[in-house]
């Protein structure tokens, strides 16, 4: 029987910075998601939240978290594609 849609495995390079790097205990990793439709930043957040613990609490609704896709600031609805670099970090505090 033919499935309604075929999921393909897409791979993202994740980068964690500052307080979130410490909370997650890692600086970067590769995340693979089986997707049957175009994905946005939200899909990555959902996948990470599913790990529970610090992932669920730091990325919970209402927490101040910022994202960059391929090193440009991006919102949660920004599209992401195979091979993209997605950075996750707290609001910036330079200057």
């Amino acid at each position, binding site marked *: 029987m033919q499935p309604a849609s075929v999921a393909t495995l897409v791979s993202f390079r994740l*980068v964690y*910075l*500052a*307080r979130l790097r410490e909370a997650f205990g890692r600086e970067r990793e590769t995340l693979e998601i089986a997707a049957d439709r175009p994905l946005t930043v939200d899909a990555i957040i959902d996948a990470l939240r599913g790990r529970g613990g610090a992932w669920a609490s730091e990325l919970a609704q209402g927490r*101040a978290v910022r994202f*960059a896709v391929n*090193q*440009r*600031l991006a919102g949660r609805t920004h599209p992401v594609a195979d091979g993209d670099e997605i*950075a996750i*970090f*707290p*609001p*910036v*505090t*330079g*200057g």
Partner: protein
Amino acid sequence: MSATAPSSGDLHAPERDGRDHVRVQTGDFDAGLEIARLRAGRADIGAIASFIGTVRDVNDAAAVTGLTLEHYPGMTEQALTDIVGEARRRFAILDALVVHRVGALRPGDQIVLVVITSAHRGTAFDACEYVMDMLKTRAPFWKKERTPQGDRWVEARASDDAAAGRW
């Protein structure tokens, strides 16, 4: 080790139009020297506005004995270049320079330098403030303070978002 000015070589790394300068560095900077370099060889400048941010020894009612600045290599330079580019589109400026330090800093140390040159002062003041407001909310830097009670990440301020929002 005493602070030394960067060699002229890294100052003149050509940007897209050969005039905008953005640098992220661990070493200190000399504002006078940087301004002199922006002014060199041109007489069309009528106004120069500059901003220097420095490390305070107190924040949120706690003593601060040091600061570590983290950044996102690659994105940081791109974000600063974008901010300067947008400032150039919005204001009739002649030149812009942004220098931001990263790594371990102590109270009294310089953190950031913004210099804007233009024909008239209003433009220079506005563009300098614009660049700092955008840098505070869009450039990927994070401060971690050292205090007698331990290290802590600096929280972003709503007033910085408000300042950036007025542009």
